[in-house]
């Protein structure tokens, strides 16, 4: 109930803004186009990458900025005086970000359907799980107790953009050198990209059971760490 109040607040204030929605769609689309043009890659490979990128960017786009913005606007102290704990705030922020990630993922899915690409229903489970995972990662970026949103967004960008390039979105993991493959396996995005590839009829790099298990473990670890770090950081923001 209280978590849902936080979700509603986040959606009203942050996620329903036109520029946020447009940026959440445009950024992955332009990245996708930049890598698609001039390369002879199968359409289902590219669409799987676009779906993965969209979920990743959407789920990590706004969530890092909420805590510093609220600290700067002095709304955080008001929020902390309500009968809620930090866990409720973090869970609400993660859930709002997850919903945003899931909703924006519909754009590439509809494009894929328009291109007559068939999809496995397992993609839905993958999108939901990865949206929670990436949203928790987004919250982790804002655990640094700065009230300047630009500082937190810089930290976020430093992690998000390299992850795109090492997670098998543009280059299949089996074509990466051994070191590249090891790095790819450290990224949670790799496992969702693998699930998306499978769902669009391609051969996954890893067994699906491993993809889902690792993604679940990442989700638990990132969510737990976010809550613990925010329990320390939030109070330093007021």
């Amino acid at each position, binding site marked *: *109930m*209280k978590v*849902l*109040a*936080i979700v*509603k*607040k986040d959606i*009203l*204030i942050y996620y329903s803004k036109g520029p946020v929605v447009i940026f959440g769609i445009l950024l992955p689309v332009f990245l996708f186009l930049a890598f698609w043009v001039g390369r002879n890659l199968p359409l289902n490979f590219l669409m799987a990458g676009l779906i993965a990128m969209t979920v990743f960017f959407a789920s990590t786009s706004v969530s890092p900025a909420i805590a510093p913005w609220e600290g700067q*606007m*002095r*709304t*955080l*102290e*008001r*929020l*902390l*005086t*309500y*009968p*809620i*704990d930090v866990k409720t705030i973090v869970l609400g922020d993660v859930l709002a970000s997850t919903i945003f990630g899931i909703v924006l993922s519909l754009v590439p899915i509809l494009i894929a359907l328009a291109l007559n690409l068939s999809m496995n229903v397992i993609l839905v489970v993958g999108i939901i799980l990865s949206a929670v995972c990436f949203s928790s990662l987004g919250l982790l970026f804002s655990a640094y107790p700065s009230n300047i949103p630009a500082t937190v967004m810089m930290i976020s960008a430093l992690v998000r953009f390299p992850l795109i390039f090492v997670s098998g979105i543009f280059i299949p993991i089996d074509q990466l050198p051994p070191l590249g493959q090891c790095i790819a396996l450290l990224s949670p995005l790799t496992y969702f990209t693998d699930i998306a590839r499978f769902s669009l009829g391609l051969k996954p790099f890893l067994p699906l059971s491993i993809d889902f298990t690792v993604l679940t473990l990442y989700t638990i670890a990132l969510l737990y760490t976010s809550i613990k770090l925010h329990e320390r950081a939030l*109070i330093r923001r*007021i």
Partner: protein
Amino acid sequence: MIKVEGVEKSFDGRKVLKGVSFRVKRGEIFGYLGPNGAGKTTTVRILTGLIKPDSGRVFVRGFDVVKNPVKVRERIGVLPEVANVYPDLTAWQNLMLACGLYGIDKRVAEGRCERLLKEFGIYERRNSKVKTFSKGMKQRLMFCIAMVCEPEIVFLDEPTSGLDVASARMLRRKVLELKDTGVTVFLTSHNMDEVDMLCDRVAIIKDGRIIAEDSPDGIKELVGGDIAVEVRFDRDVDFFGERFGDRYVLYTKDPNETICSIVEFAKERGVRILSINTRTPSLEEAFIKILGGEV
């Protein structure tokens, strides 16, 4: 309702609270005064469970604030000094958000929000975004939010700071109405007239220590029971009293002798006395004297 025992708190090695202790009874309006940086806001943040004390114990409504901060916050309303409502939400959305965070049923919440917004005169603007509100309207909305859970204790940190006269009067009237309904009010303010008018008891904190605690009249008596003699002359003169605008004020234990001396002074200098009157020292004067270490 509130019991504070030997609370200490440091920030970056600097001790902000040094063994603060006091009690607030049910239905009391308790004023918590002190200069900037004395530790008022830190005390309020500890009492509302936002920060933990380094040592000492704090009980609000029987609950240990350190162990049960959420249970304490379910029973209190807070109007923080530096906090803000969400400017991109409407007044109605801000209030309904508060209801959601207090876990109030939606139907009950809607009725309560409507009543509060009407009581505080901002119902007509309920669908306007708060960023279009004046400071007075924002503060009234903050007050509504503090009241939305029908609290047993209300913490008001500088509630009328920077408000226009009408809004400040309205909020003061609401504070007195709260007392009538048995709500306990913990008030910090720099406005001594306001504290004098509203509070049953007052504590003064300086450098992290409570240096005086009594009723407003008791605090005034603490400074020695001097009588203030106020005098106005028809022109500027080199007079020995403290000057406030066109008035001079002298503090004395013997008003008769002081007034005779002033009359004699006026005759000698050839100035006319426009007005002269006596009064007991204000709470502000007592506060200044106490902070100055004269008690």
